[in-house]
C-alpha cells in the first residue's frame, strides 16, 4: 500500500522494463499494460493530439532527423521520445544521409519523402511556406516527446510524488540502520 497525498491506493507496476518500452513505443500503452487504464487513455489522447496538432501546423514537416551541419536538428532528440512515430524519421535519415555518405550521390527518400531530412533548398522553402508555423509545429512535437518522457518515467517508477516519498523513506531507514 502506498500513499499519494491524502489518498491511499495499490500500485502494481508489473514488469517495469516492458512497461517503459511500451510507453515509449505508443504513449499511454505502458500504463494500459499496468492496468492504469484511465491514465493510459488520457496520456495517449493528450500526447497524440499535441503531436498531430504540431504535424498539422507544419504540413507534416516538423519531424525529421538530421545531425549534419548546417541542419543540426537538435529538436529531434525531444521528438524521439514520442516513440514509434519518430522511427520513420530515423529510417529516412539512415536511407538518405547514410547512402549519401557511402555513395556520394543524392538518394530519393522512402514513403514519398515523408519524415525525410530536407535538402537546404527544401528547408528554405518550408520556412517560406509555413513561416512561424514550422517553428511552432516543431515546438508542439518537441513538447509531445518531452511529455512522453515524463510518462515513460511514470510507467517505470510510478508517479513522481510517490517516487520521491518512497526514496525519502528509504534514505531515512538507511540512516536509522547506520545509527544503530
Amino acid at each position: 500500500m502506498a500513499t499519494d497525498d491524502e489518498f491511499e491506493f495499490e500500485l502494481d507496476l508489473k514488469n517495469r522494463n516492458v512497461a517503459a518500452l511500451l510507453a515509449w513505443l505508443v504513449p499511454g500503452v505502458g500504463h494500459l499494460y499496468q492496468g492504469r487504464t484511465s491514465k493510459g487513455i488520457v496520456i495517449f489522447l493528450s500526447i497524440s493530439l499535441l503531436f498531430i496538432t504540431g504535424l498539422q501546423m507544419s504540413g507534416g514537416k516538423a519531424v525529421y532527423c538530421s545531425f549534419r551541419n548546417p541542419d543540426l536538428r537538435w529538436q529531434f532528440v525531444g521528438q524521439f521520445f514520442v516513440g514509434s512515430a519518430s522511427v520513420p524519421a530515423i529510417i529516412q535519415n539512415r536511407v538518405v544521409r547514410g547512402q549519401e555518405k557511402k555513395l556520394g550521390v543524392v538518394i530519393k527518400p522512402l514513403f514519398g519523402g515523408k519524415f525525410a531530412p530536407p535538402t537546404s533548398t527544401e528547408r528554405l522553402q518550408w520556412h517560406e511556406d509555413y513561416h512561424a508555423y514550422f517553428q511552432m509545429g516543431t515546438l508542439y512535437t518537441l513538447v509531445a516527446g518531452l511529455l512522453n518522457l515524463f510518462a515513460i518515467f511514470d510507467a517505470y517508477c510510478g508517479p513522481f510524488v510517490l517516487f520521491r516519498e518512497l526514496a525519502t523513506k528509504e534514505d531515512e531507514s538507511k540512516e536509522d540502520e547506520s545509527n544503530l
Partner: protein
Amino acid sequence: MINFLSSLLIIGAGPEAMSGWERLFFLLPLIVCTSLVYGATRHENWPVITVEAVKIGTWLVGLTACVFVVALLLSFFN
C-alpha cells in the same frame, strides 16, 4: 455557440484558413495536454491529478499572458 464550434473545426483546415484571434485556438491543445499529462505523471488519483492540472494550466496561461504583454510592449518600440 455555432460560431465557437466552427472556430474549433477550422483548426483542422490549417493555419492558412485561420485569421487573427482564431489562431489562439492552437494554444488550447498545448495548455490542456501539457497540464493533464504533467499532473497525471505526478499523482495517481484523479481528484489530485485534476487539481494539479488546473494549477499548472493556470500557471501556463499566466506565463503566456506575461510573454504576450512583453511582446506587445516591445512591438511599440519597433
